[in-house]
């Protein structure tokens, strides 16, 4: 979009110069020329095409795409892998040669990373470094929210916490645990971290730390998180009054105290801005890969009210988007808001 605007300005100056030289041209002709040039400029911009590749049409991807389209004036067409009927998506992309390929989700990114000659912007990918290997045509927004920010938010919501429990699979989220240790040390909180190598030991590992922790920090680790372990963690939280910090609002609705998660729409918008920069002529490798700029804090008010440990009610009140959801016949009220709405957001950066 930025590129299109610059082109428009250049042509406009040329025409003005010509008009000035003629000195006899009537204003009516001048306006006609301007109109034609404007149409041309718009048509040039419209020809810029972005193909969004996504594995399936799930709601978060759709939301992210909406956010992307909200800041992009390019023509965005969509290619859903699950609906391609086995067609070679990469081959099709190469044939179409769009200006940018938008990869939504890890599957799409894994697929399109083979294309080296077209710029690729990804989003809705948690750990892009596990998929990518220094490709210069690829940039994007990860779902990762810096662990320090998460910890800071947690400490602000629960100012009295002294110890935080955390389980992790060293092969998957070991790096996050390391960062969490450092962040905890900086913030004067004790981190009780336990390693697990399979889901089956999660209950026993969690039970072992029940006397030692004030809050449990749930990391996005597929070894840790299974339907059974989630259920156990929530029951554990309920039985032992140990609040859970989760990474997605869906766990807050199930009974976790709070979550610090992404905003798919904003992430789409963030990716859209990256795409605009690339369309304006900036090389993709010049556009730095980034983490999600916006974190959404969700707090389960009912759990907050029942929590033994004190909850900072000022923050709870500041969350301005109530979500009422009926689960098992009871209404659980979850309030959410972006981290930027907090007074302390500067400290999170």
């Amino acid at each position, binding site marked *: 979009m930025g590129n299109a605007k610059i082109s428009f300005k250049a042509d406009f100056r040329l025409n003005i110069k010509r008009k000035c030289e003629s000195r006899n041209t009537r204003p009516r002709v001048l306006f006609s020329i301007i109109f034609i040039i404007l149409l041309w400029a718009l048509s040039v911009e419209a020809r810029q095409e972005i193909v969004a590749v996504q594995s399936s049409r*799930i709601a978060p991807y759709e939301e992210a795409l909406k956010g992307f389209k909200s800041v992009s004036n390019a023509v965005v067409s969509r290619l859903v892998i699950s609906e391609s009927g086995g067609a070679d998506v990469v081959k099709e992309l190469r044939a179409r040669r769009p200006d940018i390929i938008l990869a939504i989700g890890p599957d799409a990114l894994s697929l399109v990373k083979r294309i080296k000659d077209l710029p690729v912007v990804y989003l809705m990918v*948690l750990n892009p470094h596990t998929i990518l290997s220094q490709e210069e045509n690829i940039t994007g927004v990860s779902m990762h929210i810096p662990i320090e920010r998460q910890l800071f938010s947690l400490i602000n919501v629960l100012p009295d916490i002294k110890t935080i429990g955390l389980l992790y699979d060293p092969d998957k989220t070991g790096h996050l645990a390391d960062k969490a240790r450092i962040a905890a040390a900086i913030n004067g909180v004790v981190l009780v971290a336990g390693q697990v190598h399979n889901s089956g030991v999660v209950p026993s590992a969690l039970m072992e730390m029940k006397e030692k922790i004030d809050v449990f920090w749930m990391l*996005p680790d597929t070894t840790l998180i*299974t339907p*059974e372990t989630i259920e156990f963690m929530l029951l554990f939280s309920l039985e032992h009054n140990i609040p859970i910090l989760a990474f997605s609002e*869906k766990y807050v609705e199930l009974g976790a105290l709070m979550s610090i998660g992404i905003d798919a729409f904003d992430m789409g918008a963030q990716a859209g801005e990256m795409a605009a920069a690339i369309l304006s002529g900036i090389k993709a490798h010049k556009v730095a890969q980034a983490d999600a700029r916006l974190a959404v804090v969700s707090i389960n008010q009912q759990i907050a009210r029942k929590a033994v440990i004190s909850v900072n009610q000022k923050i709870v009140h500041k969350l301005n988007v109530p979500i009422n959801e009926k689960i098992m016949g009871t209404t659980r009220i979850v309030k959410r808001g972006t981290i930027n709405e907090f007074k302390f957001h500067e400290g999170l950066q």
Partner: protein
Amino acid sequence: MNLNFMKAFNENFAIKVFVKLAVFIVTIYCCLSIFFIHNQRKTLTDSLIHKGHLLVGILAHNSRIGVFSENLELLNAPADGVFQQDAVLQVIICNLEGKVLKKLERPGTYWPEKQTTADRKNNRHLFADLKQAGSSVLRENRDTFEFWKPVMTGLHYMQEEALFFRDEYLQRRNRIIGFVGITVDKKILSKQLNDLLFQSILIGTLFLLLSAGVAYLVSRGITRPLNRLTDGVKALGKGSTVDMLPVETDDEIGKLAQAFNAMTQSLQAREVELRKSEERLRVLSSKLLQAQEEERKRLAIELHDELGQDLALLKLRLRSITRKLAEHQAALIKDCQETSRYVDEIIENVRRLSRDLSPSVLKDLGLTAALRWQVENFAKQHSFKISLDVQDIDHLFSEDVQINLYRIFQETLTNIVKHALAKNIFITVEQQNRQIVFVVEDDGKGFDLNGLISRGAADKGMGLATMRERSYMVGGTCDVWSKPDRGTRITLTVPIENTGGSI
């Protein structure tokens, strides 16, 4: 007892209606009970099976975490929760390989199906089936139901990104992580059925008692008017006075009562007419007998006074003629003497005829002696052996009654001579209470009394009818007993006080 009941059953319409209604109600009740029990057995069995599926489903759901982590502590609560159900005898939780993680058995339970190698082999087949079916499986044993269900886990997150999204956005891929089984006791069904049967019998008994009461009232309602009709008919048959029956309904029974009342009225009217007619006949016959007696008396007087005097005069004249005849007219003298003897015989016959026509002996000797005289005279005339036992009954009856009694006695003896061909006659006259009972019995050929009754009046003859009429006139009764070849007995009973009746 049985005969009495059968007799009552056959003869009593109320009992018949009651018994039939009771049998009908019992039959209906038994059919309904059988249907109800059968239905309840099926319902209870279905309910137990449904409960078993539900419990094993709950157990499978609640034990997911425990099975997943193979953590026995986490299996305690789900297993105990299901095991607390009364009917549950055994709870088993296994992992995917079939290893038993948790097993609870009700103490004291006899397990005929102990785990054997074959059973374990069967279980392996069962687990294979469960894996394939993915839903609960029921195995029915002799005393128990076994419910088995695979323990399913939901999503298995393949990517970390999926952890952020709601599960409904992701493709669901269930997988089996273990198996749970419960054994439910069938005896609880029997207990519930027994309770149900007891309640059913209790209700049925009350229902039967109520129905029996209703049946009794209904049968009584039907038979009461019929009984009244029956009593009325019986009373009519006996000739008693019958009151009008109440007509309570407009149905067939009511119409029958109306018809009966109309018939009763008609019969009573006829009865009155008949009695009047009888009365008239009786008066007439009484007058006839009276006239007969008067005529006999007149004839007796005529015979005695006129014919007797004339014959006496004839005898005197014959004696006078005889005296006047000469000695050489010996033949005439002899004829006259024989004629004179013949006249004497005629005079004697006339006297006897006069006495028979008008028994002056009654006046002269009294009833007792007159009867004796009659019997002795009768015995002289005929070759009978007569046994006579007569009490003194003089002064007990008026003259008219005495004449009637004498005549009845006379007719009885005449009938024996005419018809009986008897050899012995037994006569007794005695007082019983306030009655005098005359019994005349012979050992003659007898006769068929029913045949005599069924004969027409013209064929009957007048003897018995006259005897009965005279008995009625003296206020008594005349009973006749006879059988062919067994003789005849005539019993005349006359009240002493009621000596009324006029000839």
